[in-house]
């Protein structure tokens, strides 16, 4: 059984693409599209890597990240932040809250794979 990636994202087509890329590399990918419940899912069984979209229905990705870092069980889980806004402000915000990595949409498939591999270490 490969390592587990939790993808928190609300765009079905993007979920589809990332899932395809990572599964082919042997990752076990589960996805969740609702921001409000994302942290509960995450903290219940912390995955090896979390890919977190910044804009989610119900709760903002940054808000979820902050709780992840404030919680003992999830503090050390690597988090890759994804955002479609692509502004410097968002990158700084992500770093401030303790994101392990930061990528903007659209992304290169190779980059996302390499980053996830690196984060899983």
């Amino acid at each position, binding site marked *: 059984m490969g390592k587990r990636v939790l993808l928190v994202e*609300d*765009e*079905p*087509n*993007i979920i*589809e*693409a*990332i899932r*395809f*890329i990572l599964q*082919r590399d042997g990752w076990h990918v589960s996805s969740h*599209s609702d921001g409000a419940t994302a942290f509960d899912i995450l903290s219940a069984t912390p995955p090896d890597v979390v890919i977190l979209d910044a*804009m*989610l*229905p*119900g709760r903002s990705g940054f808000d979820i990240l902050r709780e992840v870092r404030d919680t003992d069980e999830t503090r050390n889980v690597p988090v890759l932040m994804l955002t*479609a*806004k*692509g*502004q410097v402000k968002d990158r700084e915000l992500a770093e401030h809250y303790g994101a392990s990595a930061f990528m*903007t*949409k*659209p*992304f*290169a*498939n*190779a980059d996302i794979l390499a980053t996830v591999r690196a984060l899983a270490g």
Partner: protein
Amino acid sequence: MSFDLLIVSCLAYVVLLFMVAFAAERRAKQGRQEWVRSSLVYTLSLSVYCTAWTFYGAVGNAARSGLEYLTIYLGPTLVLLAWWLILRKLVRIGRTQRITSIADLIAARFGKSNGLGVIVTLIAVAGTTPYIALQLQSVTLSFAVFTQPSGSGFAPTDPSGTAFWVAVGLALFTILFGTRNLDANERHHGVVMAIAVEAVVKLLALIAVGVFVVWGVADGPADIMARIEASPIATWELSGARWVGLTFLSAAAILCLPRMFQVLVVENADEAHLATASWAFPLYLLLMSLFVVPIAVIGLDLLPQGANPDLFVLSIPLSEGQGGLAMLAFLGGFSSATSMVIVAAIALSTMVSNHIVMPIYLSFQKGGATIAGDVRKVVLISRRTTIIAVLLLGYLYYRLSSGAEALAAIGLISFAGVAQVLPILLGGLFWRGATRTGAAFGLITGFTVWAYALFLPSFGESGVISAAILTEGPWGLSWLRPQALFGIDGMDPLVHALFWSIALNTLAFCAISIITFPTPLERLQAARLVDVFAYTAGTRGWARGTVETEDLMIMTQRILGPSEAQALFQAEAERQGTAGYLPDASPEFLERLERRLSGSVGSATAHAMVGQIAGNTEALVEDLIRVAGEAQQILEYSQRLEQKSTELSRTAGELQRANEKLTALSVQKDAFLSQISHELRTPMASIRSFSEILRDESLTDGERTQFVTVIHDETLRLTRLLDDLLNLSVLENAQVTLNIGQGTIAEMIDRAVMASGVKVATPVLRLDRRKRDEQIVVETDTDRLTQVFINLIGNAQKYCDAAEPVLRIRVSMLHHDILLDFMDNGSGIPSDSQALIFEKFSRLTDSASSGGAGLGLAICREIMGRLGGAIDYMPGQSGAAFRVRLPMRAVQAA
């Protein structure tokens, strides 16, 4: 006695006068003025009052009207005996204010008004011209008497020729001695001295003739008294009104006649002389009048009936064979005439030149009048020209009125003319409330009445005023008859004219003065002149030129600061070569200092400050007025500044508000761009990711088809988004041109259904319509309204979460509006989000489905706004419900 001898004697006499005048001028220039400027000379110069009119005319007057001639002496005697009342004030004002003429005095009193100066000058010219004519006439007549030794009448070979040459000679003399130099105080030592000599000659001449008459013709005083008793002179009834009128007139004349003002005020060297003159001049007048009645009586006795009594002084000695005495009498008359003309011409030329010619010249010379030499030349030229013009006018008047009146009558007309200045003069001297406007009105009123009632009728019935007007009045208005104004008939014409002109003059002067307000300068001048003694008493002791340099230094330090003041004074001390750092307060230094200070405090203030320390208080009050003027300007300037500063702060406030608005707009724009970025990047992320997968991998056909479909759909989504953006941008910003057309609601909904692709989409959205209600013809932009329907139907398709989605469309009319309701059977929009749905990119974040750009409802709202309607969310329905309201305008049932 031959005419030639007479001419030679005349010329010799004139040469003697020239020499006297020349000697006096030289003495004055050498500073030995004591004798030239004695009270005796002053008193004698006043005798310019006694002209040929008094010399010859008094006898004629006595022969015709008895003792009436005495009034002519009575008036001046009263004025001089009461010298401390008016004359002392006049002389003091004249000296302190450097008054050059009566016109100058009136102008100065009423706020330095040149307009008044001009009026007084014109009155003086008009009043003096007949008088000069009178002198020419008397000289001409006296020449004529000599050419006809019988003395029975006069028929000179060419009287106007004589008059002309006399005028030319007088003009020459006046120009030579009256305009030799320009003295600041307009004093003419030579002329005054010559006139004093003439005064002696005419007094001696008259007394000599008198003595000859009393002791040579008659047998002493007793015989004369008896003859007087027997003559018609004793039987003359004295008219009380005429006596009062004439006395008043002669008193007014000595104050107002330009020549009298010249000798009394302008040529006065010392106020103390006035005290001497106050008794000496009446004495002179008494001597002049002493033998008038005896000469008249003897003349009436001795000479044939019809002999001109105006010439008794000459004709009696001639008829008695006393050639030498006649010659003396002739020279006396000649002296009387020439002295009057000379002084009058000088006085008039000063007035005309200062008040009329120079103002006109300077107004043509803008800025070029600073070269003193040039102006002096112009002044001299203008004075000389004026003298010639004045004498020419007198000559013309003489030609015009020749023989129309007896000598005395012409003199009285003149007196009455200049007497019009009296109310203004006295009012100006004693009444602070007198104003410039009042003075102008009074002068013009009095002068007009005088001209109409006395001057113009004097040319005779064939003259300017016709006989008809004299007897019936102008336009038949009898109350306007020149010699019976307001229906008052039967008065002596002179007293009548005098009464009305002075009364109306005074009335106008007082009334207008009371209702008008004086300017500040007028107030100031009124105070200075009315209270001239209070003003000048304290300043007598000022030792001029003893300026304390330290005081100047202290003042300068206050204004310029210590270092700059010290530098200024030190530099000046070096320039003067004075030891130490305090220079002498030379006039040049004071001038420089004043210029320097005026840069800091304004010229008027600087002048006043330096003047205060330098003790030059003369101009101080005037300067203070100017200081006040400057302060006023500064005040106005600061008010303007204040106003500007208020405007600026208001503008600043507006700018701040505009800036806040812009900042808010900028924040909105950033948020909008951030949203746009997100909306564009999301589909692009899918496209990129899948295209990379498609490029790199070996995929199954199923996968390949699936991924290509995703890319295709996302591309469509991008296109839609861009279309919406462009639509919204146009609707929000540009001047939208509405393409108004006609169509039914049903047609437009049909088109919207087709365009939104509801029929082919899954799950199928069922439409619940009532086509019967939709048959309403609308006049509107049908394409844009259809766009609203497309968006609403599309939203229902995308967001309606019912298992079997249904969209109900209902059309109804309310008042003047068409209402279109779009209601689906989904879960609807949460109440806390309902307020946001019409904002851009407000796509509700809990909606899971993709594809919407969040611009649709914003576009709908914009379109409905343009069409004059509205779109609103209807809460409380089972699902999401929107109401479109369209106004009835251009709407009708099908």
